[in-house]
């Protein structure tokens, strides 16, 4: 009631409201889960670029599976790991539309690694938002391709054993070698400053698609308070202490910063010494 009285006396403007591209639906995410922050940033970017009406999102399998109910744009639910292939099919059918996939670490870097690498190397002009929280959340906390060495999970109860389970995958570093890639950045959302930086990166990744710059991926180092068995606050602290040294934040590829208009120009420059690739050889 106090608020109503205030409103009657003074004028107010909303400085923060739910973005249009994020439907007013209560998510299935646990308290403090960063999925909610990242999905809101994606929706804010869709609003700011004014592309909701021509955007198609691809939902993964994992905790974000029901994100097709959260985003206001048209949505497609993909099989586990196949989002980049589905996104490819959509983008090739509707090249003037904006197509993004939202994927977790198991989806993108384990079962879907082939689709991830090949969509990237084909230079599909799509946007990938990659949530890396080093664990399988939805199935109850199993070891992920990005689980850290010695990290205890349900399926690495004595800690991730490098002799038997091998090493985690650093996705941005791996994809940075591919000619088809235009932009890769790793961010996190553990505080207001980080959230602003993450949004800037996500906006770049969408703007690149609109401008035809090429394949763009933003990796968000995230938390899973429930399966890490921590409070959201403890989870951020653990993430800062253990994940960020293993997964350093930063830009891993940016063809525009390197002076090229798009991924294709950068790839062409890299291939100048190859007569076949540079078009200097006969067929």
């Amino acid at each position, binding site marked *: 009631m106090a608020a109503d009285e205030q409103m009657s006396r003074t004028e107010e403007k909303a400085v923060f409201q739910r973005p249009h591209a994020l439907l007013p639906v209560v998510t299935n995410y646990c308290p403090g889960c960063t999925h909610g922050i990242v999905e809101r940033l994606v929706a804010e970017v869709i609003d700011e670029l004014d592309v909701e009406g021509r955007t198609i999102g691809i939902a993964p399998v994992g905790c974000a599976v*029901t994100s097709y109910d959260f985003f206001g744009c*048209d949505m*497609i639910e993909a099989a586990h790991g196949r989002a980049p*292939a589905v996104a*490819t*099919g959509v983008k*090739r059918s509707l090249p003037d539309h904006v197509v993004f996939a939202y994927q977790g670490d198991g989806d993108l870097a384990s079962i879907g690694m*082939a*689709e991830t690498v090949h969509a990237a190397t084909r230079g599909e002009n799509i946007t990938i938002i990659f949530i890396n929280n080093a664990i399988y959340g939805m199935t109850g906390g199993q070891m992920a391709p990005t689980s850290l060495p010695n990290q205890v999970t349900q399926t690495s109860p004595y800690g991730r054993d490098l002799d038997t389970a091998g090493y985690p995958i650093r996705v941005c570093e791996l994809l940075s070698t591919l000619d088809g890639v235009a932009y890769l950045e790793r961010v996190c959302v553990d505080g207001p400053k980080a959230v602003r930086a993450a949004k800037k990166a996500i906006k770049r990744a969408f703007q690149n698609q609109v401008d035809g710059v090429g394949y763009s991926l933003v990796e968000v180092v995230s938390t899973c308070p429930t399966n890490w068995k921590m409070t959201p606050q403890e989870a951020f602290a653990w993430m800062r202490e253990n994940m960020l040294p293993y997964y350093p934040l930063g830009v891993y590829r940016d063809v525009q910063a390197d002076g090229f208009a798009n991924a294709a120009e950068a790839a062409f420059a890299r291939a100048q010494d190859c007569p076949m690739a540079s078009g200097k050889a006969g067929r």
Partner: protein
Amino acid sequence: MTEKVLMKGNEAIAEAALRAGCRHFFGYPITPQTELAAYMARKLPKMGGTYLQAESEIAAINMLYGASAAGVRAMTSSSSPGISLKTEGISYMAGADLPGVIVNVQRGGPGLGSIQPSQSDYFQATRAMGHGDFYLPVYAPSTVQEMADLTYVAFDVADGYRTPVVILADGMLGQMMEPVVMPDAADPASLPAKPWAASGHAGARPHNVINSLHLDSEKLYQDNVRRFQTYERIKRDEVRVETYRIEDADVVVAAFGAAARIARSAVNAAREEGIRAGLFRPITLWPYPARALQECRARAVLTVELNMGQMVEDVRLALEGATPVSFFGKCGGIIPTPDEVLDQIRGIAEGLGE
């Protein structure tokens, strides 16, 4: 165009798909479907379409899933081992009610099997194109002309019922050359509208969601019930079958696809010997033309297949024990000869005479 042209079966499928308005093809190399993909790779880029060689059959079927979800006519083709990889995506297509045409130019199995013709994916095509409760229409061409005609029809059926559709051919039909009259190219404006597609809402409607997940048990149950009501309409309206010299036949040979060509020769040879033989040739393997088989007044049925005996189970199911059913088949790329089939017919006819 009513001009007859000489074409390979695999190419006839590809050309018919283009004429049906398909502009998006996603594949992965495998023998013996090769010419189909190669034809698409030649034609589609010149038509403003997409030929995309995917990183795997799994990726290819999911690209088809995406293209179909976006509302365009699209297809993929493969051969037996590749189809096994596609079954995940086909199940998702069925669950999300997505149209799309999947061609299987069969080769021998199981495993890597052989690259020779086979019909050993009958069970897979009619029963097990992925996990979950679903069927999908399966067309079994027997000539190059049917490769074209049924592919053209498959796109309409896929869109009309919102279901994936399978063309079940084999290496023999795929490689064979025959004269074919191509169907006229569809007018793109005449293709059905897809208001359900995820093609961007343009601010004009609530968002569309293409999805096969229903965490609420009742919703999943109702979704399956609704889909099975569609299957009943398909069973009622889309059954296709050819019967040949069957009116007075004592011995009916049941065969589909390439095996039906051999069976037809054997039936003709048997007739010349005075044996009343006929041919029952399902063109849709699902829905199975069970009623047409029941209506044959055969005293015995011989099923001939290029496998160890798969369709014979549907023949027995249709006849419900009322008629004796026997099987003759070879596999591994070995094609039974008409004489071998004739021997089988003779043996059955002699048995009936006793």
